């Protein structure tokens, strides 16, 4: 799973609600939900230091 360009995004209330990224070149919106396999993989790569999630704009 090649994950690039990860960044948090906020909802209308100003709360971080999702992570935007490209997976194998396709835009994905990934909820902050443990058990979602994409979120779990993002956190695994963050923990091992191979991926950084940019802050929300």
């Amino acid at each position, binding site marked *: *799973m*090649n994950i690039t360009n990860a960044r948090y*995004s906020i*909802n*209308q209330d100003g709360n971080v*609600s*999702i992570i*935007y990224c490209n*997976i194998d070149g*396709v*835009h*994905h*919106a*990934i*909820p902050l*939900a443990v*058990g*979602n*396999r*994409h*979120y779990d993989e993002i956190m695994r790569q963050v923990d091992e230091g191979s991926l950084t999630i940019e802050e929300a704009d």
Partner: protein
Amino acid sequence: MSNARKLADNLPTEGSLYGRNMIVNGSMNVAQRSTSVTGLGANATGYYTVDRWQIETGGSNSGRFTMSQSSDAPSGFGNSLKLDCTTADTSIAAGEYLLLEYHIEGQDLQRIKKGTSDAEEVTISFYVKANAAFNFVLEFYDNDNNRTCSKLFPTTTSWNRVELTYPADTTGAFGDDNASSVRLFFWIHAGSTYTGGTLNSSAFNTQSSANRAPGISSFYSSTNNELYITGVQMEVGPQSTPFEHEPVGVTLSKCQRYFQKYNYSNDLSSVTSANTLPVNCCYNSTVAYGGSKLQQEMRTSPTFSASAANTWVFYTEGASHVVSEMTAYETGPFMWGMKFVTSGSWSAGNALYGRPSSTSSYYQFDAEL
């Protein structure tokens, strides 16, 4: 043989008649993502065609294959899952492998009573066919407790039903939740890291890599190789029963707990037609938001993805708009909140209607294990 004897032989030894199959889409009838994907093999772990059935690869596989939903099936079935080797790999590195696999939530496995003194045997049956005689392994892996048991099975050039009974395991209970507790691994290619030991087939034991798949053939041995599987059933007890067929709508609904895809379609009667998007509202001059329920409650909050933003067109105030961003701002098991950003501008407060502008348009939700 008397009819009473035939009836008795076809009844499950444990549990109910309905819903005894713990496998969703065992008849390979639903393929929301695609019916055929070519060139798989390198870093190919993922879901591609038939719903719920995942490919996992590891190591430096140079073999390649096509995965498809096939109409070649045994009597009484309409479909099978087909793997077709397109590039051979006869120099097998120790750490490489190719698996067809299936994951099951722990809350759907409580009937097995694993990890208790009442633990049950489990029987897995399926129909299989290949271009030649091979031996492959089906490993029953307890993902919660790292315990496993593997069974070898043969293929022939005809459709045959394989029936494998796995022993009761009084060690290690399954979590009663929506996480992956069992993983069924069909080992069809592997190096010595996974084949160098002795097959762990008589009891569940802590997983040891070398004992997972000794004795298997290699699916990558020739570009002539084809493998077909369908009618996969997993049930409690030592006896297999006839495959539990169900209406395709029931199977689709079960599959949509894990994945939902909406495609452009000229057939508006198609349940997965995406010829319109739910109505949205322009929040300001560039951003619109909307919300919609999902077709089916999903296992967890799903990942949203879609075809490129320029494969969609939006209408408001009598004009069409191309968007630079088509995405979700949040998702939950029941719903998703959508977000669109126009390349131009629109007026806050107006309704916004969207539809696909390309035959390749789609959006999808993934809550797979």
